[in-house]
């Protein structure tokens, strides 16, 4: 059941993206996106019900949850025609994350000792952080593409796209939101581990690296004015690193903190 719902959600997200790629605007764009969100949420609920527990620590659920958060990122822009390209790029990202989630099924890891509420808080904050970085990644790519068009003087049709500084400002917000929440999530997990049995595993190292990368990027922006292209490159490279870590975790270490399967 949950698999069907998640596949339908993926189709609903992919439709507006495909329509944009072929240059035919979708008639009921917003209704389809909202329908996709409902299916997505329904799919996750069905999964939890089927498992009899909120298994936020499985990679499948993790990616599907991040995908849902990224798709929810479209909600503020649905009624803004010039922001439709942002909406569609977030939907493309959500589609890919759902696709990755379907490929990562079965990989499951649970820090059994951690109380459920603590685990949910820790992992949820990490997911929100990852979603923030994913949104920042999409906005960074959009920024670089739009900047390239402006620099190359390919100005036809730009009136349908958001302003460059608007994308940059949104990118900054997404990056800050991602950084703050992932910091909080990592801190909660770290404190608990410190009090029990702390050990440096791949996830911890990867999280530290990612955290450091974004910390440098944000610091550079706030102190040195690294906005625009600098910020976009940080966003792209940062999330590419996150994606690599997630793929590596799933393929080589059996899930979060290498405790799965």
């Amino acid at each position, binding site marked *: 059941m949950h698999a069907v719902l998640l596949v339908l959600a993926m189709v609903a997200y992919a439709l507006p993206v495909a329509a944009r790629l072929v240059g035919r605007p979708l008639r009921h764009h917003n209704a389809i996106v909202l329908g996709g969100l409902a299916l997505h949420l329904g799919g996750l609920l069905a999964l939890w019900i089927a498992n009899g527990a909120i298994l936020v620590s499985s990679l499948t659920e993790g990616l599907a949850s991040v995908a849902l958060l990224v798709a929810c990122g479209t909600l503020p822009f649905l009624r803004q025609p010039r922001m439709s390209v942002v909406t569609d790029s977030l939907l493309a990202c959500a589609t890919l994350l759902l696709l990755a989630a379907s490929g990562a099924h079965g990989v499951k890891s649970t820090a059994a000792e951690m109380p459920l509420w603590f685990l949910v808080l820790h992992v949820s904050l990490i997911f929100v952080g990852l979603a923030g970085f994913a949104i920042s990644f999409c906005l960074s790519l959009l920024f670089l593409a739009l900047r390239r068009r402006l620099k190359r003087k390919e100005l036809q049709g730009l009136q349908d796209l*958001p302003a460059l500084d608007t994308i940059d400002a949104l990118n900054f917000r997404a990056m800050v939101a991602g950084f703050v929440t992932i910091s909080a999530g990592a801190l909660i997990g770290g404190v608990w581990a410190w009090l029990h049995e702390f050990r440096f595993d791949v996830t911890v190292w990867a999280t530290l690296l990612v955290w450091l990368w974004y910390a440098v990027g944000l610091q550079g922006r706030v102190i040195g004015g690294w*906005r625009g292209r600098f910020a976009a490159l940080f966003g792209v490279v940062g999330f590419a690193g996150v994606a690599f870590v997630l793929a590596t975790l799933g393929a080589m270490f059996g899930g979060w903190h290498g405790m799965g399967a």
Partner: protein
Amino acid sequence: MRLVAIGISHHTAPVELREKLAMAPERMPAVLEALRSDGVGREGLVLSTCNRVELYAVPEPSVGPDRLAEWLADRAGTALRTVDSHLYRYQEQEALRHVFRVVSSLDSMVVGEPQIVGQVRDAYRLAQTHHAVGPVLHQVMDKALQVAKRVRNETDIGREAVSVGRAGVELARQVLGSLDGRAALLIGAGAHGKLVSRALLDYGLGELVVANRTFQRAVELANRFGGSAVHMDDLTRYLERVDIVIASTAAGQQIISRADVAPVTKRRRYRSLVMIDLSVPRNIAVDVDELEGVYRFDIDDLMQIAEAGKEKRQLAAESAERIVMEEVRACWDVLEGELVARGIKRLTQHGEALRVSELAKNEALLAKLDPKDRDSIEAMTRALLKKLLHEPLGYVRKSAAEGRGDRVEEIVAALVGRANDEREDE
């Protein structure tokens, strides 16, 4: 008659080539003067805007369009070969049609934009002041301005125009987003610069700073726009503060170089800076665009934005083209009619002058005759002149009726000679 229109425009050449032919207003009197002194044209008018450089001329009979093109390039200080393939050359009715289309804004970057009428009027006035226009160009330019008015009144061409000002606003907003509270620096007092500044203010621009070579002019402009005036020496300092720079001067040279902007970008902490260069030749170095956070646009880029409403303007433009063709035919008939009338007048005046001169030579002999005989001789000379001119005048009228008005001058010149022509003109 030979009416020629030679030029280069945004349709045929990019701005980097147009600026090679561009002529600053202060050079125009010398150019108009040289047209006659160099023996290339009897009448002439030069239109130099950011989108086009054109010469409308009635050339000397021996001068062809290629020689005129060479002269124009030479006067602009460039080699003909660099621009030759981008130059268009129109003659006679085609030239007249081109002039009408240009003045009616059908050939403009933004079809229907009204600025071109003012620019043509200024060029016409300047040519009149320097006695560079004669009977043909007077007729052509007066009619062209009337046609432009008719096109504007009878079609919707002006209503659908995306103005240069609006195109500038769109570009600024594409980079900066909202213009609320943003600051702009206007350099120069060019027409397009003022249009863009006005449009930016209408769209919420917070502050406008005006710089001009003549500080008093900057103060006047600043007062008009509710901004402040600065000296040209302070430009670099203001580059750090503002979000938009609009350059619209007739300086004919670079005012802002990459070296001026490069240190500023870091101090601006890479905040976006939109630089709109509306001048031809351009005032802002092209390579500033390579700097982080700097987005430079020129008049050709504005054209791309203006293209957006092109389809809507197409319908209005089709009606306007019909009006232009109708007016071209009517005006050409009038011009040819006048040409024929002038030719006939010259021939008859020339014949009459010869008759009177021959009678004067024989005045002593004629004085001995009685008045009746003298009258008979006078009547005989008149009749002889009439018979002599009958065939040539018939040929002139026939040529005009057959649409070969261009031959009239040739026939008259053959019969009367250029020297006599000029004497009679005087």
